[in-house]
């Protein structure tokens, strides 16, 4: 009878030491291959039932000591990050600011306005900047997951407001909105 091969997570036929190494390898591979941070639940799916994801990650981190990158926990999961010491080198070699979020100056300004004044409508943005903020620009911020749709504003036409997301906090390394610098 044909049966789909199930992904073997338990690896019962391996000696414990090898099994542990294989699990470590899987976790590292999954995080390496992912563009976004990987949540713990996802990692738990590639290792045995009783295996502690945290202990596995600790062992991986121990091996990464001395390497120019590290495995770090962010709000929504685990990701690789180059160590701060190499920031200059990375910046020199690649136009990182552009590559990362690809935000232009005005987009950053719009994002900041939403962060400080949320929930905020396009009308509200217009009041702040004295010019129309295009739907395209907001759509870009939305597609990058930095802002999302908030409650409707109780005004004619019921325009949507925009609010920042968890991903916004993560991208700018903020614990909460209170970590936003005091507006000057």
């Amino acid at each position, binding site marked *: 009878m044909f049966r789909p091969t199930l992904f073997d997570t338990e690896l019962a036929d391996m000696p414990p030491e090898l099994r542990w190494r294989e699990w470590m390898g899987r976790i590292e591979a999954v995080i390496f291959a992912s563009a976004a941070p990987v949540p713990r639940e996802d990692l738990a799916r590639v290792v045995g039932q009783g295996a502690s994801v945290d202990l596995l990650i600790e062992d991986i981190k121990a091996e990464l000591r001395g390497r120019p990158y590290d495995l770090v926990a962010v709000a929504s999961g685990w990701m690789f990050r180059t160590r701060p010491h190499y920031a200059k080198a990375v910046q020199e070699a690649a136009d990182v600011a552009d590559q990362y979020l690809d935000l232009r100056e005005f987009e950053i300004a719009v994002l900041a306005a939403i962060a400080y004044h949320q*929930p905020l409508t396009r009308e509200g943005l217009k009041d702040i900047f004295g010019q129309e903020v295009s739907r395209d620009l907001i759509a870009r911020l939305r597609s990058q997951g930095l802002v*999302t749709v908030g*409650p409707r*504003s*109780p005004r004619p036409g*019921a325009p949507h407001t925009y*609010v920042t*997301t968890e991903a916004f906090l993560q991208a700018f390394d903020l614990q909460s909105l*209170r970590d936003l610098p005091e507006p000057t």
Partner: protein
Amino acid sequence: MTSHPRSLSTIQNADIGLPRWVTRQNAQSAENTRFFAGAAVMKLDLMLQGADKGFPAALLSDRLALGAALACLKFEGRQDTEQALRDAVCLARDDEALGPGGEAFAFWRRGARIDLRSGDWADRLVRLLPERQRETVVMADLIAGGADSLLGWVAEVVERALKTHPRQEAMALMLGDCVLARSLGWPHPVPLLAAHMTRRDLRAMSIRQQDASEVVGCALVNGSDTALRLGDQLNRQASRLREMEPKLRNRSASQAIEVFLTHDAVSPSGMLSPVIRGTATSMTDRAARRLCDRLVDLGVVRELTGRATFRLYGL
């Protein structure tokens, strides 16, 4: 430890709020604060016990939750208005984010609906926190009791939570409300403390500049006073609203009235139609609007926004 007299609210009508001997003057001593706090909670307890006789406890808590949320947003340096919080929770649809103000209100109102009689009440409270904060909170440690008095325990819980999670004032104060309510046998927490604390109070507690039980005791006296007055007012309005039910000549009226008796504000298009919240009874948008207008005409419900559209109604 420095201690200066803390002022308690001054009131006129002793029948409704707390007697004047409680609120007339500064507490003057920690001993007095404890004594007055006991008296305040006693009177509040008597009011809440009227819940079987139709006292709208859920509505009272919901409205106190709004005040608590505003206070906590102020601690964060935000300047949200009552109206903005109402709009956020009433006008956002399920798939829309509430924004910081709406989230603060949602935290307090959901917290105030937690059933403290269930064994996992503390876990439920944790689940109301933003995802990133949940993992760091160890509830069992936070609510562990060592103090020799109830007020001491509540204060200890608030103080400890503020110390381990200095930026989660809402959680700390909600925990204080929960521990108090649970000890008194109340089914749900009543948000009493937050609206009567200042940023300075919180700071003084977290650096142990001031005795936490004195700060919490004062907030409890003033919070009880507020709750008693508001409760009395809502109780009278609730019974008038109930009396109007036969006049409404609407089969779903009693269920709609129940929504008014449990929510700070009601949006006809979101909470009464297409189905009446919490029920399977359907109501058309038009019928919902008509019902609200009628209740306003009868003088038992107010329109809360002053707007011509996106109106919200409440007691």
